[in-house]
């Protein structure tokens, strides 16, 4: 009797190991395609906002996939073409040898409204550097700061010093052109130095289910005034088409402040929080899974129009003059 019971227990023990997830791990072209399509179908957040018929895209590309060899460059490029239909700079497909990316949000525009030559003309070589920020006092008592990546770490001590250094100037130009994003915690860290009251910077909604419209409530991202050095005089933020992702969120947040003016070109957008997943053949996919909104609950995925649209003219550029910086200087001296 006891041996029968022991045998039963052993049987249960072994059979419970069979509770594995039923996953198709085939590396056939069809399965790779279906895996990618399903991951995005269940987790991508902008189908309706971008008016994308994902089922139609499935049918369009499924017809091509059957004839494509597994793990081929052609498969990689075809899947890349499919995900680029989403027109989202946060959507990428990664293989060991290449990355599919959608960069039309800045490549489609002829005037970049930025050049390293002009940046050097204003900053020179004797500028100061503090925690990812380059800065200099321009000769008309205007503070000029450049920040080219929100991935560059920011320290409180560095911000303290910069704002103290510029405390007597007419205003500050914060140049975030070419800044294509990084850490959102740096957005809060900088924005908190320019506000006198707690504000809602942006809102986030994440997917709560597999349906294209399964979203959470709006979750506010608050900006609380810093208890350290703050700057409440006039500030102009310079933008161009390469301002993307965290930079886009930063601009959406800062433009609510009464002392801040946004100047330059439209931002590139990128209002989605990206997450990553993987395909059975080892390729990785990145895509937007949470959407961000401005304080009026409007999506910022497609970019932000500045308060004052200014472009660098060819004639100014030839004379080493940055039209946008000059416009900002005039504005701050008014």
């Amino acid at each position, binding site marked *: 009797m006891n041996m029968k019971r022991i045998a039963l227990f052993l049987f249960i023990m072994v059979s419970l190991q069979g509770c594995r*997830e039923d996953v198709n791990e085939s590396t056939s072209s069809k399965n790779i395609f279906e895996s990618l399509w399903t991951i995005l179908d269940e987790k991508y957040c902008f189908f309706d906002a971008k008016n994308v018929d994902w089922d139609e895209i499935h049918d369009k590309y499924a017809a091509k996939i059957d004839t494509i060899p597994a793990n081929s460059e052609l498969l990689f490029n075809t899947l890349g073409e499919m995900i680029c239909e989403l027109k989202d700079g946060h959507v990428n497909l990664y293989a060991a040898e290449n990355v599919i990316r959608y960069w039309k949000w800045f490549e489609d525009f002829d005037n970049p409204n930025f050049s390293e030559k002009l940046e050097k003309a204003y900053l020179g070589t004797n500028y100061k550097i503090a925690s990812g920020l380059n800065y200099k006092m321009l000769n008309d008592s205007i503070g000029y700061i450049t920040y080219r990546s929100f991935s560059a770490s920011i320290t409180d001590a560095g911000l303290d010093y910069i704002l103290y250094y510029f405390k007597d100037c007419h205003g500050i130009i914060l140049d975030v052109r070419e800044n294509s994003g990084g850490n959102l915690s740096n957005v809060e860290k900088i924005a908190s130095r320019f506000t006198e009251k707690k504000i809602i910077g942006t809102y986030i909604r994440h997917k709560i289910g597999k349906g294209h419209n399964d979203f959470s409530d709006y979750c506010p991202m608050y900006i609380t005034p810093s208890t350290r050095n703050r700057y409440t005089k006039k500030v102009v933020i310079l933008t161009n088409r390469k301002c993307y992702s965290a930079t886009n969120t930063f601009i959406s947040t800062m433009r609510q402040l009464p002392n801040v003016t946004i100047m330059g070109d439209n931002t590139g957008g990128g209002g989605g929080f990206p997450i990553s997943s993987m395909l059975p053949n*080892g390729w990785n996919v990145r895509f937007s899974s949470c959407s961000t909104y401005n304080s009026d609950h409007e999506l910022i995925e497609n970019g932000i129009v500045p308060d004052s649209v200014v472009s660098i003219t060819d004639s100014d550029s030839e004379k080493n003059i940055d039209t946008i910086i000059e416009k900002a200087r005039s504005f701050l001296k008014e």
Partner: protein
Amino acid sequence: MNRSANPSFKSIRIILLTLGVCLLQNLHAQSRDQKSLDWQLGAGNTYLYDDYLSPLPHEGASLLFSSTGTKPLKWNLPDSLDRSFENVKWTNQSNFTLNAVYGQSLAGSNMFHGNIELKNSLIRKVIYRPTWSASTGPYLLLGGGGRYCLQNGNNPGSLDIYLDFGLTVSTNYQFNFWKKQLKLTYQGSLALSGLAFSPEYAESYYEIFYLKNNKNILKYTHPLNNQHWMQQLSLDVPLSHRKSSLRLSVRNDGHITLFNNIRTRILSTHFSVGYIRYFKIL
């Protein structure tokens, strides 16, 4: 809001009550009774699936360390002076388990998993025969850990925190072999209800912990959304004067969850070698 109508509050009350009873059991434990402490170290295989991180399963080698203390309780003690385990009805068992896993998927991605569990069981002997006995009782388990996937740039990790209330059963059979009295023990436990942490479907940890958007992250668990079990078959071989034993065991653990449309499966089998020490505190 009517708190008493909320199943989460009912569950919390039941769990707190059981936790209180377990703590009181410890306070009333008889200091002159025999108790045991064992340490086991095992190696085996673990299957990992977490579709918050990856739609691909990962599998690989794992290590398990566990330590269990068992002591008789005051309730229903026999009148005789011999208060060894064979003669008491109620025992308290506390267990600590540490698990570490390195898994790979067929696609070559890598995932690490680590887990710690603290478990306290109140066990009553329900059948007692000269060569075998069977026991059962409730337990409370607090666990935590997480997984980290090296290939995920934007969401590389996921976190587990859970509190389980469940039932444990055990049976042991004593027999003589090669002039030694060996003991074969099966112990199994299954979670019945509790609480667990889970992000919403595609919610980032940045949103939960930095922006404090923590609605719906605490889930009431039951066998339909949380199947958490442990079963172990062990053979105890006495070493000297019945004060210590060598324990050889095979252990199977499973934890399958479905919260907020996120599925996880952690299934493992370990073969362990351990040492049991029996104490009699005067």
